């Protein structure tokens, strides 16, 4: 079966660190960063990037639309 891998890119300066994307991720990929952005928010990032399937759940639920999702199929 072909494997699906995904990745997200967070617009760090626009992320407000609300954390709504964290429970929305079915693969438990996203966490809030210990670092802060220019406004002092703990922005979200891929803590376990190898588990991301690019399902777009995080981007769909993000109130500020800061998440961009990429997905690739890897033929086995």
């Amino acid at each position, binding site marked *: 079966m072909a494997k699906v*891998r*995904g*990745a997200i*890119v967070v617009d760090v300066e*626009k992320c*407000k*660190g*609300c*954390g*709504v994307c*964290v*429970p*929305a991720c079915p693969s438990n990929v996203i966490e809030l960063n210990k670092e802060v952005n220019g406004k002092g*928010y703990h922005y979200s990032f891929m803590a376990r*990037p*190898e588990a991301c399937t*690019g399902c*777009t*759940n*995080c*981007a*769909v*639920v*993000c*109130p*500020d*639309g*800061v*998440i*961009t*999702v*990429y*997905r*690739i199929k*890897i033929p086995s």
Partner: protein
Amino acid sequence: MDIAIKDIIKKENLVYTKTKLMTDNVLSYCPGCGHGTAHRITMEVVDEKGIQEQTIGIAPVGCSVLAYEFMNIDMVQAAHGRAPAVATGIKRVMPEKYVFTYQGDGDLAAIGTSETIHACNRGENITIIFINNGIYGMTGGQMAPTTLAGMKTSTSPFGRDLHSMGNPLKITELVAQLPGTYYVTRQAVHTPAAVRKAKRAVRKAFELQAENKGVTFVEIVSNCNSGWKMPPVQANEWMEENMFPFYPLGDIKVDGELVKK
């Protein structure tokens, strides 16, 4: 064989990005506020239907007063509560355009009740998108008509007492009774599944507007984590436990007929 992240992040693998119909301005809303998601799904529908040049939005007074800064379409900002009246005028002058209002509960269900009810009763061919968070968010979390029984706000610090402060208003059920409304539904935007359903509802509302069926009314139950004094994720959980039993999600009126519960 594993693949590097930089090989996944390529233009040809893009599956989701913010629609071009949302401007690059940083949203003025608090972290976790449902307004941003509601803006985005509305603009995604406009984008997917390819009606950017035929759509006119009416911004309200409230937190979303600056909606015209974020939605990359033609917009008018109406006086407090008067968005359905302004939308009526625009739609009657330009019946070929898609006209929608975007209002909060303080705007639509308090000061604008008269405009809302009469526009819905006249059956104007407009779409009303109504964000209900049960509180006046912009002015500092005062009690709204939609505030739940027992809910604490800055003007009801011991909880809303039904005896002295009256009952919460289900304005969506109210307008569904009127003959002018054709499609009335209640949605939410706190989980991915709910967002996708809400987007389908907004799409249906725009499609029915093109058929001149009457008012299409989409309520979106949303959070107000600043007004409710909770972190965003906890506010969403509180909303599921407390708001949804009183404001149940789902269609209320479909094809001009009330949905029997």
